[in-house]
Each structure stands twice: as C-alpha cells, then as structure tokens.
C-alpha cells in the first residue's frame, strides 16, 4: 500500500524524500487526474506521496538583484496577480486552465510534469529560467532546458525536490504569447508560441523565441537567436525565410485526439512569421 506523508516543514520534507521512495505531490492538478480511480476510492498512486502543497516555506515570490524567485508551492493565481511578475508570464497565466486550476496548480508542478504542452513551461524557457533542486545531500541549479529531458521526464533524483524557480528580469520592447487550444478558455494547448525582442535604433540587440506542443520538448534555440542578434530590421527581413526554415527543421509534432501534425506545424510557423513581420514593420 502506498504511503502518504504531510510534512510540516521543508526540512522534514527533505528528510522524507531522503528515503528515496516518495514522489512530490504539489497542487495535484496533474497527478490527481492521472491516477484517479473510481469515485470514493483512494487515488491510485504508484508511489508513496509527499503532500507539500501547504508548505508555506516554499510559497513565495521574491526579487534579488536582477532576479525573481518563485517558490515551489506558489500557485499560478498567486503568480498572476503579483507585481514582480513580468507581463509575458501574466499573458500566459491569464489563459492558463481556469481560476480553480490556477488556485491549485503551481508553476513548479507545471515544470515537474514536463509536458510539451505545458503553457508556463514555455514561458520558463523563454525566460531562460533556472531551477533550484535540493536534497539532504546537496543543492544544485539547473537550467530549465537541461532539467526537462522529454515528455514527462525530468532530471530529478528520487531524494530531490525542486525548491524554486528563478529567472532574470526581462528588458524587451515587446513580448508575444499565443496559446492555441481547442477553445477560448480551459483548454490544453495544441500549439503555443512566445517571443520577445529588444531593439537599439533599428538593430536587434536581443531576441528570444519559444515554441511549444510541436516537439517532445519546448523549442528554444539559442544558436538561432544569437545569429539574429545584431541584425538590422532590413537584415531580418532578408533572412526571414531562412529563419523560418531553421525553426521548421525543429518542429516535429504529432497527431493526437486534439489536433494533427500538419496543423500544428503550420500554425507554429505562421505565428513565428507573424512575429518576425511584426518586428520588421514596427520600425
């Protein structure tokens, strides 16, 4: 039989995790759905569960120097309404699930779930976020793209917990977020796109592009981004189709009950193109 523990402190949580046989249960909005059974029966968890959702020690949003830190149990709704949070994250969270799910689910849980269709995961990539992972043995920091290895697969040892996520404040002229779901709200993404850029006169000094739900992990290619940096708007216009084809090479979506791969690919590229056009015509 599966064991359940509700730690009263973060330290206690780490101790329980050190036994190596517990999985973290945070808001539960992924896990409770995945393992639900017949009503009135216990949820069919496969592992022992550590209920951390009420650990207030991990419920925080703070800012230090250029960085914003978000604790593991902080819910989407708290993040959405917090003054420190960059607009791009808010754009995403406003259309994330529904108010009830936002009150339960957490940003760290969205990352722990490692779905290629995780909306806030996309933004974490865009923000080039890093995770603070801890166990009684050590504390380490991992960039998001190294942490998420594939759909549902993360670089986390059995005794480890994600303590927080943090990222640098952005300084962009404009940010973009589009979620394409089956309906206007309360939907799982079929495709999603986020981007931002900064111009100095007509020169692109910074640009970031993230595309989700079209490959096993979020697409964010620093090499392409680096190649765009330094372009004038004219260069960008000339290189547009090249950039599109570079991204097209990464886009490798699937057919499922929600959409099909042709649509996903086409829409992802449409959104990317619209973004590039927007920069070009902005001048």
């Amino acid at each position, binding site marked *: 039989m599966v064991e359940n523990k509700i730690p009263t402190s973060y330290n206690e949580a780490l101790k329980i995790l050190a036994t190596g046989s517990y999985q973290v249960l945070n808001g539960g909005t992924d896990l409770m759905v995945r393992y639900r059974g017949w*009503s009135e*029966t216990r949820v069919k968890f496969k592992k022992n569960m550590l209920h951390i959702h009420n650990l207030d020690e991990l419920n925080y949003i703070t800012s230090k120097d250029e960085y914003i830190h978000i604790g593991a149990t902080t819910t989407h709704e708290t993040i959405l309404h917090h003054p420190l949070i960059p607009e791009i994250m808010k754009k995403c969270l406003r259309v994330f699930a529904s108010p009830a799910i936002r009150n339960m689910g957490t940003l760290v849980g969205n990352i722990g779930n490692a779905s290629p269709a995780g909306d806030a995961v996309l933004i974490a990539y865009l923000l080039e976020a890093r995770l603070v992972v801890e166990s009684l043995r050590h504390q380490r920091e991992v960039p998001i793209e190294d942490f998420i290895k594939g759909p549902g697969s993360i670089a986390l040892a059995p005794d480890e917990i994600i303590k927080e996520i943090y990222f640098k404040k952005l300084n962009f002229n404009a940010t973009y977020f589009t979620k394409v779901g*089956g309906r206007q709200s309360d939907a799982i993404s079929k495709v999603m796109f986020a981007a931002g850029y900064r111009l100095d006169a007509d020169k692109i000094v910074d640009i970031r592009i993230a595309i989700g739900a079209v490959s096993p992990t979020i697409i964010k290619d620093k090499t392409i981004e680096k190649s765009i940096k330094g372009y004038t708007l004219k260069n960008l216009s000339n290189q547009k189709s090249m950039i599109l084809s570079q991204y097209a090479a990464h886009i490798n979506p699937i057919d499922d009950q929600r959409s099909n791969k042709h649509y996903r690919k086409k829409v992802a590229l449409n*959104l990317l193109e619209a973004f590039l056009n927007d920069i070009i015509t902005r001048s």
Partner: protein
Amino acid sequence: MKEKQNISVGIDNVEAADKIAGLAKYTSDIVIEGMLYAKTVRSTIPRGTIREIKIPTLPKGYYTVDATDIPGDNIVGMLRDDWPVFAAHHVNHIGEPIMLIVREDKAIITEIVNKITITYDEAEPTFDFTDSCEQLSFQKGNTKKAFKEAKKIIDYTYETGYQEQTYIEPQGFIGYPENDGVTLIGSIQCPYYVKHAVMQTLGASEDLVRVIQATVGGAFGGKEEFPSLMACQLAVAIHKIARPIKMIYEREEDMEVTTKRHPAKITMSAAIDADNRVMAIKSHVGLDGGAYIGLSKVVLSRGMLASTNAYTIENVTARGDVYRTNTVPNGAFRGFGAPQMIFAIEMFMHHIAKDLNIDPLTFRKAHMVKQGDLTATSGVFRDPVIMNSMLEEVLKQSNYIEKVKQYQHPESNKGIGMSWFLHGFGFTGSGEKDKIKARVRLKKDEQDNVHILIAAVDMGQGPKTTMRKLVANLLDYPIEKVIFNNPDTRYVPDSGPTVASRTMMIVGGLLARATKKLQDQWVAHQEVVTEESYEQPSYVQWDNEAMHGDAYPAYSWGINVCEVEVDRQTYEVRVRNMWNIYDVGKAIDERIVLGQADGGQAQGIGYGYLEVMNHREGKIMQKNMTDYIIPTAADTPPMENTLMDNPYPLGPYGAKGVGELTLVGGAPAVALAIEQAIGKKVHTIPVTPERIMELIDNE
C-alpha cells in the same frame, strides 16, 4: 373579474431555488442503507466471439451478473429490439457490457474487474457505410421528369460528425427490491420506456416494476433510450442479489459507451430550371447507427423529413439508410436527425445560389414555404407561416445585408451566416396515436390541491414550471396549490416519453383539456380525478409505409444569424454575435423559452465548429471533458433572441414545440459565417481550425 396574467410573462422556475442552493437531489446524491455498487465489465474489441471469460475467485459476497442471470429476454426493449442487455456470445463494439461486478467495496470491485480476462475470437469489424440495415424513402411529385428537363444539375455531399450530449451529470441509477419486484430511481427522460424495458428483461408484470425520476442533471436525448440498458442490467442484479444497488457512470465511461448523435453523410442533387428555381431535390442520408440500431430508424426518418427544410420544392425524392458499424450505438440527441439534414440543406441552398451566381438570400426567399404549400411528404402547411416577417426582423436586428457586403472583403476575416429551419413536434405521423397513446391525469385532493400526474420529466427545460403555470392559469388558481412531483410510475399514467419537443404541445394540450374537465367537475373539499387521452387531429393523414402525408400536425420555425471572425494565423474561430428569432406559437413562459434558446444555440454552434469526436478502430478518442470540447462561457457569444407570437389553434394557449428547434439551425449558421470569412465552401462539420487550414491551403 381580475385580469388574468399574460401566460407568456416569465415566472421563477419552481425547482431552481433548491437547485441553486444545492438542495436538489440527483441520483448520485441518494444513499440507501446497505446499498452495493455495480461496475461493468466491457468488451475491449470491436467485434468477435467470446471464447473464454476467466474470473478470479470472488471474495465472499461478491457477485457477477451477466446474461445467464436474465429471467426474461436478453434484449433492451426499444424501437428495434436488437440491443442485448449483456453480450452473451458475441460482442459488436468496444465497451459493450458483458457483466456487472457487484458489492459494497469499490476498491475490491475495481480489483476484480481488472483481474478478469476475456479471450475472444476476433472478427473483421466494419466501420464504413456498407452494412445497411434500415432503409426508408419517399417521393413527392415527379423527380425523374424534373431532372430530365433540368437546365442544370447541381450535386454536393455533406458530412457531419459525432456529437456527445455531455450532460454534466453522468448516467446513473439506484435501485432496490420492493414487494417481489424492483424499484429504480434514475436520471432519465422516459420513465415508461425504462419500465417497459425492465418488464421485458425480467419477464415481470406491470406491478413488479416501478420507476422513479430523480432530479436530472441534463439529458438532451442522451437519457432517452440509453438508461433503459442500464436499468435492465441493474434490475437483473437486484433480482439476483436482492439488495439496493447503485450504478453511476464515471465520465470517461459515459463518453465511451453511451449513445451519441449519428455521424452522417448526405448527398444532395438539385434540378434547376431556366429561371434558376429548384425544380427537384434528390437526397440520400446515410447514418452511422453503430453496433445496434435501437431507434436509429426514427432518427433517419426525422432527418429525411427535414430534407427540404423551410423551402417548398415541387419534386422530392428522399432516400436513407442506417448502416451498422462496430462502434458504440448512436441514438437520440436533441434534434433527432434534423441537425444533420438542416446543415446539409442550408449549405446546399447557399451553394446552389453561389454556383448560379445569384444572391443566396434572394434565392432562398424565392423558395420560402408559404401557408398552404405542401411539405416534403405532400402534407400541408396549414397554419400561418410568418417566416417573412421573422426574416425582416432578424435582418434588421443583425444588419445582415450590410455586413454580408462588408465582409466580402477577404481581409476582413469576418463572416456572417444565416440559417432557416423548421421543426415538427411530437412523434412522426400517427406515432402519437398508434405508439404512444398518451394519457394524463389530474387529481384534486380534499385539501383542494391539484396534482399533475404525468410522466413528463423536468431535466432543466422547465415543464415543472410551465405545466403548473398552465394548469394554474386555466383554473385561475394559485400556482402553489398545483403540485407536480417527479414522475413515479406507481402514480402517474403513461403520458409518453419526454422527447421530440412534445411535452408542452401534446402533454400540455391534454392537461389543458383535463383541466377544463376538472373545472367542470370541481366540488370543493372532495377528491376529483380527471383523465384525458390523445386524439389525433382529424386532418392529420399519414401513410407510414409510403411516408406520405402530414408528418406533423404543425411546425415551429426559426432563423439564426451568426457572426464570426477567423484568425488568419491560427484558423481559430471566434463567434462574435448571434441573433435568433423563433415562432413557437405562444411561449408558455418566455424566460424558459429564452433559456432553451440560449442553450440550444450554444449546442448548435458547438456542433458546427467546436465539438470534435471521432473513433479510431472503434475506440472513441475524445473520452473526457478535456478532450471533447464543449463551449465555455468564453466561447459562447452574446445572443439576441426574439419570440414571435403566432398561436397554434390546437396548442395549449397556442403553444407549439420549443426544445429541439433552438439547436437545429446553429451548425449551418456558424458554418456559413465561416464560409464567408474564409471564402471557401464548407461541406463538413465541425469546421475546426484544422479543417479551415485545409480549406484555405487546398486552393
């Protein structure tokens, strides 16, 4: 005498206060001391013969219930009796029930269900439209001649997908043994359908089966025939185990195994004369019946009867088939065949006009039904048809003509669409007289409370309110003194199923007559009982074999106008506005009719552009509410609804049918709007973003 309240003025729904406060009792809220739970073991293959069922040794007190336990017929009594209560030897679709596991501990039941292994000899399943098992056809005028003389012939094929009722309350029953018989309380539309089906399965007499309606959390046709299947199974279990048992479906189970709207393929062919008029229409409707036919033939007939919709066409040939496939059986859903056909004919009329290079609105107007015209089956539209004034009104409200021009510009990404439609109510032809034979009863008790005794179910559409209002108004009596409890077959006569938008018009009509009688026989402080039974209006002539004559005594009418915007990058559709106008004779309660309008349209447009369900090798792919997308508050547009007053002389206060009418025009209205926005002809619903992309790309 004090002036009587206008019957149409809305009053508070009599059940709503309790529902809002969370006090209403739905089936799953009911608990009976010592009750057990039942879970269904189902087939995992689309077609085959059961070779062996391995059941683990059952803990003490745990039961299996299967075909061998059935004392009567292993058949769910429906229109066509081909649906087994439990699969005994063969299975014909994934999810087909084979047995129940029953006891009180759900965790152990689940374990047992998971341990049961069934081996099959698999057979080749059919998923295409080849195995026709019901055929219908009718003929008006001389289609052959018209096609011979035609200046031009235009053909199109239209396709529609599944639609899931997606009532928010899943299917469920609780039942218990009572006086050597069984009593079943459930989420149902048709207490007597359930009762008769259970009697047949148990081989039991009338007095041994009692069916009671609990508060119903939405139905939309989905609780018309399907509950009979569950009830029969549960009745067999109660008969065997002699304990109270509860069976509530989980959402996924409900979505995977309960009946849905039939996917359809409709081909239409029109003969056009030199004046650009449609001389004749030939149509063929193919319906995917699923593994068992049940009431699919009636759905087919309903669809075919709508084949010329609100247009008068001199020559008509309509044919149709129900095909058997190895998929979950399809069944009743608000509109009953009409939504498929009305989608097809509305698109078709539009597409013909386009191909002829005439303004679609002018073209449609030239064919609009007038009073006295013949219906598709050569019956007569006897009552005043006010479509013209409805059209004028809705054109004005929506600014349709101006918008059509504006949105012609391809860059606008906007479109506006309009659908016309009619819906006949009650059972088709002489069905009310021959099959249903409705009876209603009114009882005034010694305290002078008047009890409405009918089998009509309030599943949110409001008869609890409207029927009481009707009787109270006719008696000029306080509504609080008119009582209408949930039907219990022990006390109420069979006034027929709560389907086909028949409740107000037919059952209400009978109640109105029973009320008159009661008034005549009224003696204070004494019990007085009056009854009425259905009599067909003498003018209704219907030949069921030839499908010729008056399919319905009268029709309700409507127009929907829908405005959309399509995103050029994501192909997503936003429905911006809707204007809708209806002739339902007389609204017995405006608030309730408007509520039906809003809800029906939301389902209708959902069917048109949002709600995708399909199967892969017989397995339903969208099996939960995350994947089967119904509109949220953010998807539904603001709606302007107008009700016209056009009392029908034989309806109570002039009322006609409402419930289905408000759904049937939604899909073509939204599809035509999308068609304009993208500048491509639409032939298939739902018009999803994926489909829009294809349409735009396939230049």
